[in-house]
């Protein structure tokens, strides 16, 4: 698999689940992108997260894809490389139509919620690939 930024993330596992492909990934806090985004405040660039989705989708398609259209991409929470050991990238590819999300299966324990019992979504994307 060709990655645009080689050390931004690694894929730990892939499984297929109800028509979706679910990639478990880990972000690398040492990636050079964090030198500039932002100095002293590492935040995973939204566009790098989108590229990670495109690369996972390319893996599902078995060929390199181009992201030709984003109908909507919502980013509901900042993703930082130090906060998340693993993230889930969920890909649903139907012909040229791509639906994807980035989230985490396990959440830290909070009052009234057991650790790991909820799934949170931080980014959703609907678009078209070619």
């Amino acid at each position, binding site marked *: 698999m*060709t990655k*645009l*930024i080689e050390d931004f993330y690694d894929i730990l596992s892939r499984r297929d689940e109800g028509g979706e492909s679910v990639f478990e990934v880990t972000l690398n806090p040492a990636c*050079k*992108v964090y*030198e*500039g*985004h*932002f*100095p002293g*405040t590492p*935040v995973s*660039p*939204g*566009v*790098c997260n*989108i*590229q990670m989705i*495109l690369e996972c989708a390319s893996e599902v398609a078995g060929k390199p894809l*181009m*992201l*030709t*259209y*984003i*109908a*909507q*991409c*919502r*980013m509901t929470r*900042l993703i930082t490389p130090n906060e998340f050991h693993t993230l889930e990238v969920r890909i649903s590819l139907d012909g040229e139509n791509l639906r994807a999300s980035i989230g985490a299966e396990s959440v830290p324990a909070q009052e009234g919620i057991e650790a790991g019992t909820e799934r949170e979504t931080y980014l959703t994307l609907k678009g078209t690939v070619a």
Partner: protein
Amino acid sequence: MKTVFRDAELFDLIPQRPPIVMVDLLQNVTDSGAETGLTIKEDNLFVHNGQMQEPGLIEHIAQSAAAFAGFKGYADGGQPRLGYIGEIKRLFVYARPCVGACLHTTLRVLGEAAGITLLAAEVKDGEALVAEGQMKIFLKED
């Protein structure tokens, strides 16, 4: 007052730093928009096989918006604030421009409220439209 910003001068307006700086010109700023630019160099973070990939184009739009917002802060004597992409809507990528291309981008403000700016952008390489779309940018409170 300074009204044209190039290369490292933009560091007064945007919080991003190399290797992810994706804007190298800001000019013609008005209340309702601005023009920005980016010359695509071989060593650009988002260049692969001599072409700028989609995240580079999208980040260019985001940083154009950041530079525009930063200019307003600068004009008021303030510091640039961190701006994050909150939402991308109806964004088309028509082509992957080649190394050496000078992107020329027109930004228009569609709406502003409570630290959120909605912008429309058109990115051209010469006469060719390479990308266009809308973006909501959230500015972090100090």
